[in-house]
């Protein structure tokens, strides 16, 4: 790829996720086939060998994330992709990656659920599962693309966040985002950020694997690099060994939370559209954000002061941006393909400042611009 001039390509969302991952330096993929995420795996099977990367089709999704964690500990950027039921299976290992602080990227192309649900239909039902699906209390980073270009950039950013904060990052795509093909202009190579995990600089005998030196994120050594240390899903002390001592448990849990919460402004990622004078603001993500943008443009043509706040980071929830919109407008409309998972967060942040209107659809079809516009008109009256 020529890195010096902008490149135009015609890609599907899932294809852009793969290209984004490869551009970020992902060189290990383990997965298990499931609709509508399968194209990611099929492309990875094709692309990895020539790039000197590794690809393996595992026996299930639990095994897939296990292998991804193993590869990351051995020093290779790794990811897996799945859809609803497979994402449920991954939850235990996701928790392991959080506690052991193993960078990795997990893509969940959401489909209708629960259970086998609607395998080929779009939905946004896994938002709170992505946040709270594992047992125990820990922070997580969840990103959601809504265009094919987003798929590329969000995947790049997911790897960057995972390396920077030593944490699994979840990408919530949906069936429509992942299967839509569109022309996009890729940023030039020199415009792309690329973040690598911090490596220890001390000699191995001085290395204390979970000591942070004021950074909140410990330096990470790879297996085989001469820094022999212990990795576990148990709560551990700074040397990596299991501990029950309340002071050590507290310090660990607190740091795990703070390494994300203290970097909230870095992780918060939203795109505003027509917000300067907006009285009605739509908060949307994923494929619904596309319908919402269309509806906002139609509303503007009709003379309504409408705007859109598109969320790319879902968790930690971008409360500052939502709060700012809530203060400035008269009503917030949250359309979602679920019973109201992000609208709960919006209401929590809004704290009664303005009206919060919800538009929920869960019949396996997209929310159309017309439906959003209709809701906006109703809210006006």
């Amino acid at each position, binding site marked *: *790829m*020529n890195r010096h001039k902008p*490149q*135009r*390509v*015609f*890609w599907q969302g899932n*294809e852009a996720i793969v290209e984004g991952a490869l551009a970020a330096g992902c060189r*290990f993929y*383990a997965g298990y086939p499931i609709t509508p995420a399968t194209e990611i795996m099929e492309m990875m099977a094709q692309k990895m*060998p*020539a790039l*000197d990367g*590794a690809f*393996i089709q*595992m*026996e*299930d999704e*639990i*095994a*897939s994330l*296990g*292998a*991804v*964690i*193993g*590869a*990351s*500990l*051995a*020093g*290779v950027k*790794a990811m897996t992709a799945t859809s609803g039921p497979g994402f449920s299976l991954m939850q*235990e*290992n996701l928790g*392991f990656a959080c506690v052991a602080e193993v960078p990795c990227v997990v893509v969940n192309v959401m489909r209708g659920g629960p259970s086998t649900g609607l395998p080929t239909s779009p939905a946004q039902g896994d938002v709170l599962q992505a946040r709270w699906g594992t047992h125990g209390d820990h922070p997580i980073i969840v990103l959601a693309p809504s265009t094919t270009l987003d798929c590329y950039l969000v995947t790049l950013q997911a790897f960057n966040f995972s390396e920077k904060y030593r944490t699994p990052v979840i990408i919530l795509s949906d069936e429509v985002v992942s299967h839509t093909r569109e*022309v996009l202009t890729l940023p030039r190579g020199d415009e792309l950020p690329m973040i690598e995990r911090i490596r220890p600089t001390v000699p191995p005998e001085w290395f204390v694997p979970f000591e942070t030196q004021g950074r909140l994120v410990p330096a990470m050594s*790879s*297996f*085989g*690099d*001469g820094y*022999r*240390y*212990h*990795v*576990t*899903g*148990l709560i551990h002390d700074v*040397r990596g*060994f*299991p501990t029950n001592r309340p002071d050590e448990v507290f310090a660990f849990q607190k740091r795990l939370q703070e390494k994300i919460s203290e970097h909230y402004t870095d992780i918060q990622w939203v795109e505003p559209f027509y917000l300067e004078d907006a009285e009605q603001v739509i908060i949307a993500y994923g494929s619904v954000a596309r319908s919402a943008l269309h509806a906002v443009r139609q509303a503007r043509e009709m003379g309504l002061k409408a705007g859109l706040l598109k969320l790319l980071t879902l968790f930690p929830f971008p409360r500052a941006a939502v709060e700012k919109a809530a203060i400035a407008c008269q009503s917030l409309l949250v359309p979602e393909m679920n019973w109201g998972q992000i609208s709960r967060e919006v209401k929590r942040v809004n704290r009664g400042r303005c009206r919060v209107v919800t538009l929920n659809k869960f019949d396996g079809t997209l929310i159309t611009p017309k439906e959003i516009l209709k809701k906006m008109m109703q809210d006006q009256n």
Partner: protein
Amino acid sequence: MKDITKLIHQYLRHDKKFPHVWCPGCGNGIVLGALIRAIDHLEYSKDEIVLVSGIGCSGRMSVYVDFNTLHTTHGRALTFATGIKMAKPDLKVIVIMGDGDALAIGGNHFIHAARRNINLTALIINNSIFGMTGGQHSPATPYGKMATTTALYNIEPAFNIAELAVTAGAVFVARGTAYHADLLHKLIEKALHKNGFSLLEIITQCPTFYGRKNRMGTAVEMMEWQRDSAVPVEKWEGLSPEEREGKFSIGVLMDKEAPGFLEEYEKVKAQAKRIASLNATEKGDHGSQI
């Protein structure tokens, strides 16, 4: 004694807050000793070894030794090990599991790792019981035996772990016991030496739960049972079904050559790179450009 002290200093972690979690009389320490002697004898460096363990009593083994160590989720040790080995094939990846860990929750991973023939060394410590959770029956608890989750006695037949590994395609399969400690470290050496998926089943004693529940006496008496029940595999072939009753074979049960996953994948990589360079010269760049 001098040699043992040397091994302890060389291979156990100085900064670990001992004591260990194992009960008096447990066989896990004997297995750990045999593993360390095998590694020492084969002269692997500590940096090239990765010890991956599952959950349970055996899972804690990874805490104590000074290698790259990974204590995974219950039953999934082989999957983590697969990722490590693929990412860095030069590392020597050893996986320690218990019978409940490897065969109940991890049963699916176990058969697929054997079938795939990825170059790992898997040790299953078979004490016929779930130890750390308090003595529930496992897929390796023999029919008729007692456990805390059997009302009267175990009504399920047990897996024959080594035979299962042979059937699933493992290229090296052996069985040893905690009693036959010398044989054990020689079997571990062979397993470590083998290119491909190698599986070693190690019969050990859990006097705290399995022994007590089944009135098998002290740890010493349980080890005497191992001595009296184990038959060298060469002799085993000549025994009639009646003579085999209540006994088991020890030694190397399978040692064959078969294509390994990693070697096969290297071939795929080489060919993919050839195709990619051909395509690059023909098209100038990849095909999805417009």
